[in-house]
């Protein structure tokens, strides 16, 4: 509760700040300060279970350790994101303060979609998350790619909204209570009534769209590539994970009892997502676009949690959200500063910027799922979850084969950084883009992020043990 209100309030503060702040740097510090406050208050709520504000939401929101930990992760990732890339937000355009305000609104939506208890809040949360993102995507106004991305994102997002509403309508029709509470669907344990079934498929599609699962992923590469890189980083991590939490909340609470009836659909989507994400990423030359595809691939892995829907899946998803967000934010922070976004642009980075190269390697290893990183532990837990579920064993093998393919493209970047000589242009120009400086603080932050990833890889219990079921 604290986080929802405070993010909204702080968004408004940032919005008005646009009028008062003179320097371009000021909003960043305000945003960081606000975020720290929000994190602390959220953490207090997690520890004590008591929010600062006692608002009767009529059970429209539900708070439990899972939600709150997730919100903490999302907020902390955002904090890291501000710290690493805050100065790059300043470079996107003039309306710096507004950008931060929008990000806070997105966070508000994230918190809503993590804690919703009725379909209405789900809908609102998703929309609150999406609309600012359409804007952020298009915020580089004179860049045609940014325009294009925004329009594509918007059109397809609106389309998926329509689908989701259709789903909600059918679910409502099938619910003889006449309510929207997600845990009130009283269809028993037999075969799903047709209304519910149709509604559920619509919801599945709409949420798959939000988490960019195949074949509803097509917006992702284009939008991620077209959007200003610094916002791509945010979209690909915090927002995407929020989609997952929304996804798993709905399907666990509403349809958990009839898991077996829709598992096949999820497994098909999972398989397709893993396949398309990993396979398409192989051929990409632009690292940014490759990361977009890799985010699809990672989404495929996370879908295993939805597929399995057991305690391991929950633990795994929490860990995944942390590990994946940390690594991706770190990687994007480095990518933003690169002169050349293609893989060749990374050639010889180890020589020019050893700290960047080493930390990027750790991020990539985590994304690949090499032991000793958070990425491994989360993938591992999700695999346990999927295997434990016992149905659709082929999916497990499909997942690991795709993980093997993922090693291929992640390691191409590692190869470029360490084992290849920088090309002519990069050599003359340096790996780092003009106007970007690699400060010591930035390096320290990257190192801290890398250490955090390794720490989570060795002691994942830090996160998983605080989950209560």
């Amino acid at each position, binding site marked *: 509760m604290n986080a*929802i209100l405070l993010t*909204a309030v702080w*968004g*408004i503060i940032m*919005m008005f700040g646009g009028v008062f702040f003179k320097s371009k740097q000021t909003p960043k510090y305000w945003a960081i300060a606000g975020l720290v406050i929000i994190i602390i208050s959220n953490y207090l709520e997690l520890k004590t279970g008591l929010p600062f504000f006692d*608002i*009767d*939401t*009529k059970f*429209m*929101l539900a708070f439990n350790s899972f939600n709150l930990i997730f919100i903490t992760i999302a907020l902390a990732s955002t904090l890291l994101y501000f710290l690493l890339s805050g100065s790059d937000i300043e470079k996107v*355009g*003039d*309306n710096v303060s*507004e*950008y931060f*305000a*929008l990000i806070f*609104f997105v966070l*508000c*939506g994230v918190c*809503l979609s993590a804690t919703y208890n009725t379909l*209405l*809040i789900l809908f*609102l949360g998703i*929309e*609150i998350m999406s*609309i*600012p993102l*359409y*804007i952020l995507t*298009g*915020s580089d*106004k*004179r860049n045609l790619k940014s325009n294009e991305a925004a329009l594509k994102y918007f059109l397809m997002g609106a389309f998926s909204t329509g689908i989701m509403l259709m789903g909600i309508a059918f679910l409502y029709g*099938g619910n003889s209570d006449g309510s929207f509470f997600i845990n009130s669907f009283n269809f028993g344990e037999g075969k799903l*009534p*047709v*209304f519910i*079934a*149709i509604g559920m498929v619509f919801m599945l599609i709409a949420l798959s769209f939000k988490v960019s699962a195949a074949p509803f992923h097509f917006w992702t590469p284009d939008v991620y590539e077209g959007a200003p890189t610094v916002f791509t980083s945010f979209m690909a991590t915090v927002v995407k994970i929020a989609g997952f939490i929304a996804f798993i909340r709905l399907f666990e609470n509403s349809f958990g009892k009839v898991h077996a009836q829709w598992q096949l659909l999820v497994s098909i989507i999972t398989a397709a997502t893993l396949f398309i994400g990993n396979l398409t990423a192989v051929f990409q030359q632009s690292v940014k676009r490759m990361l977009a595809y890799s985010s699809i691939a990672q989404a495929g892995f996370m879908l295993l949690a939805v597929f399995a829907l057991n305690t391991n899946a929950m633990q795994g998803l929490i860990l995944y959200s942390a590990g994946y967000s940390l690594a991706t934010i770190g990687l994007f922070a480095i990518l933003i500063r690169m002169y050349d976004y293609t893989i060749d642009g990374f050639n010889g980075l180890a020589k020019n910027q050893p700290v960047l190269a080493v930390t990027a390697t750790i991020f990539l290893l985590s994304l690949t799922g090499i032991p000793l990183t958070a990425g491994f532990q989360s993938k591992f837990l999700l695999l346990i979850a999927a295997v434990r579920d016992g149905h659709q064993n082929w999916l497990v093998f499909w997942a690991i084969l795709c993980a093997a393919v993922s090693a291929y493209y992640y390691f191409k970047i590692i190869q470029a950084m360490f084992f290849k000589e920088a090309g002519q242009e990069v050599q003359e120009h340096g790996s780092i883009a003009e106007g970007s400086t690699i400060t010591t603080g930035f390096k320290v932050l990257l190192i801290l992020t890398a250490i955090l990833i390794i720490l989570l890889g060795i002691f994942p219990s830090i996160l998983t043990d605080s989950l209560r079921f």
Partner: protein
Amino acid sequence: MSAIEIMFWFLSVLALGAGVMVVASKSPVYSILFLILTFFAISGHYILLNAQFLAVVNVIVYAGAIMVLFLFVVMLMNLNAESEPHQKNKWLLYIGGISGGSLLLVIVAALKKTVATTQLVQMNNGEVGLIKNLGIKLFTDYVFPFEISSVLFLSAMIGAVVISKKEG
């Protein structure tokens, strides 16, 4: 056939016909006008269902505000029928039509199988859709969503500013 049924069929045909015309019209302006017609037809349905509040809101917000905005934009851009080139890829057009149609078919076919569809809808009766009832509901139970949707508007507002403002 009662008057209500006649109205129902009339409005349904109107909505569907206008909807088809939205898609089929060459000129965006005509599309907008047909869409407005559709919205009116839907509002008529709301009235049939005794959802008076929504009927009003639909006319005001959709037909009134939103569609005017559309119209305004279309006029601003001075788009006419020729501005949209013909769909070169004919088969894409067919596939689009066929898949959209099959979506309808699939869902209808699925619904055919169940008995739930025989349930009746309360027509022209019941107080649930009256402004007073909904108002109470909105400002008691739904006060939190109501408040939080302001965030949505704020962000839309910022968005309009951010996107439309000329870069200094």
